[in-house]
């Protein structure tokens, strides 16, 4: 029973971290219509930034500045934001598929940079030597994981509230206006380019936060953590949950990550021994089926976007 709780705490932590990244993508795609195919680059910038700033000094690469944790995490978010600003200025004039391809390229370039720039990121060996905050006081057992989960849940809730407020505000309406018809928004005197850039950077900073928490949780990050698979996973979560709906984004993250892990667990437990060896491949097929099924029967996601008329047409005055 203790084992089950301990595992669920672990699972919920990872799912919540991923949910934060999905919320960031939801702001970009769900609300603003920006097709970010390079989620993993901003996630990775947050993770690498946090570990480089907050880690202990290492002989073979830079970093290890040993900043106190909140500053390191903030630094990771700033790193993601800076990357988003550069990428955004260069690519946001492109539309949909072109934007997707160029941001995907940025993510691949990011992974290759981290893999090869040994002086910066430790190369393929990755970054170790990060001391998890308060580990000395709390040990690294169940209590630590539980408190870290609470910290992550708090940030998840704060991100959710922030985005709900943002989306419900006039600025949120502006985002949707740009998503639906950019020319119309421009004709009303709005500046879509600037607004798109702001939304892109904000979403990426949120992804950077998720990346920073991810790096903190494992106390390790390597180029294997920033492969394109992660971008695909985050997108699958948003599509299944429902693009444009923050609650859907969070639910999608939990459901897909649960399916991803539970299918492996279920196969290892219930598949016959001679099939075990193929369980990994079967798992890929099952996960693919869930996503295809979702797209076929409920393309709007489990929690579709709710369009709210914030000002009634029959004004009192």
């Amino acid at each position, binding site marked *: 029973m203790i084992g*089950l709780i301990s595992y669920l705490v672990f*699972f919920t932590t990872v799912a919540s971290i991923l949910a934060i990244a999905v919320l960031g993508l939801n702001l970009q795609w769900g609300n603003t219509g920006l097709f970010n195919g390079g989620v993993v680059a901003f996630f990775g910038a947050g993770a690498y930034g946090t570990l480089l700033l907050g880690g202990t000094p290492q002989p073979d690469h830079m970093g290890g500045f040993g900043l106190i944790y909140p500053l390191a995490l903030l630094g990771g978010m700033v790193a993601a934001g800076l990357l988003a600003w550069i990428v955004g200025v260069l690519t946001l004039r492109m539309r949909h598929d072109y934007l997707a391809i160029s941001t995907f390229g940025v993510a691949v370039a990011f992974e290759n940079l981290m893999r090869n720039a040994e002086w910066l990121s430790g190369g393929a060996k990755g970054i170790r030597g990060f001391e998890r905050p308060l580990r000395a006081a709390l040990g*690294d057992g169940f209590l630590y994981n539980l408190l870290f989960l609470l910290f992550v849940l708090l940030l998840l809730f704060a991100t959710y509230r922030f985005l709900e407020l943002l989306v419900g505000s006039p600025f949120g309406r502006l985002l949707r206006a740009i998503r639906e018809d950019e020319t119309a928004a421009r004709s009303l005197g709005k500046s879509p380019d600037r607004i798109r850039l702001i939304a892109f950077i904000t979403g990426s900073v949120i992804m950077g936060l998720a990346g920073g928490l991810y790096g903190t949780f494992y106390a390790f990050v390597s180029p*294997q953590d920033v492969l394109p698979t992660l971008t695909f996973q985050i997108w699958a979560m948003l599509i299944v949950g429902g693009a444009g709906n923050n609650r859907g984004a969070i639910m999608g993250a939990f459901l897909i990550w*649960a399916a991803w892990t539970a299918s492996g667990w279920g196969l*290892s*437990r219930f598949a016959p021994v001679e099939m075990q*060896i193929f369980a990994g491949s079967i798992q890929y097929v*099952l996960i693919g089926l869930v996503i295809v099924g979702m797209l076929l029967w409920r393309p709007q996601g489990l929690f579709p976007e709710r369009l709210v008329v914030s000002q009634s047409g029959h004004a009192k005055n």
Partner: protein
Amino acid sequence: MKKLNNSKLALTLGTSIGLAMVAGSAMAQDCTTKIGAVLPTSVDWGRPIAETAQFAVDQVNAAGGVAGCEIEMVLRDTQVDPKVGVDAAKALVDLDGVQVLLGAVSSGVSMPILTSVSVPSNVMQMSCCSSSTAFTKLAEEGNTDGLFFRTFATTGVQAAVGAKVAADQGFSSVAILYKNDDWGQDLNNLIARDFEALGITVTASVAINDGQPSYRAEVTQALSGSPEALYLGLYPAEGTAAVREWLSLGGTQNMIMANSLKSDDFRENVGLQYLGSALGTDTASPRVASADAFVAAYIDRFDSEPNGPGLANSYDATMIALLAMEAAGKDATGDQIAASVASVTDPNGTPVTADTAGFAAARDVLAGGGTVMYQGATGNVRFDANGDVSAPAVVWKFTEGGTEEVQYLSLTEVDDFIASLN
């Protein structure tokens, strides 16, 4: 009661693939001890590594299991994704209560498993194939708690023997193609240093990324210095593609290969006629009778020679883990099992072979309070204080039916040679 909870969990977690319905058929026997295996079974070369581990478990069960209990190896796929691997390891430890984890293969997966699952949960982790020097550093800093072992000799041995082959063949200049991951980068750095120590010029060191349609640019770069020989630190898939381009552009057939290319696929896809002057290195030791026994038993079981990367290492990792569990006794915890590893790899202990009979013999010796020296598929495995192994080495070449040994270097010869380089 636990079974019921777990079934509920599977349902709630929403896989809903109907798997829970077969829960009843998976009832355990009276006495079963579980061990966990976290291996990349969704990758082609990962599957035989898992099969070999299961093979060792079957042999031990045939000898009556460990501490009177049958061993059940619960196998989880890592998908070579650190998140998935760590989650699988955590589930094995928390839900299945394993005290021993076998795996992973990639250092980028083994490392987060070690730091966020094995060490916090006090579980022994035995990897067959992770080669990164980062583990040695982590152990030196005292952060593995003595829980981590690996049966894959550190990249240093592989690099030193590769450099020795080049020196013995009289090559004065060598180009290097290496896989662009932690293993390849380590290997490249080490062998470049060894070549330099032996006075051999490295004309080019070129990184090869996975899954490219063509390696013409990389190969051209390697060719530019007109090297006398080519060193290949690659895996079969991209190794085949790169070597084909190398040969078609007129590169030399003097090639030195790391053990990762000891594969039938590589030999067949490149063509034996081009591999006549190619020499490979490996850390296995077929001098010991039990290693021959492993090859024979493997052929008997799988109808092919154990030619894939990491098979002998996977076998030894599993066997040593199980022997240590036997030595630690029933219901031992991970740290107790880890502490018992020394008593089953004791150079002064009673020699035991790596098979069913050997396990039974080891049980008797251990029950009498003695220690054993495990003679495994990779030789007489001996761990240093950091959980690393050094190993005897062989030089091999491809033949019609597989591979053939050209030269054997004993542990002392390897250690002396490495010492002479520094």
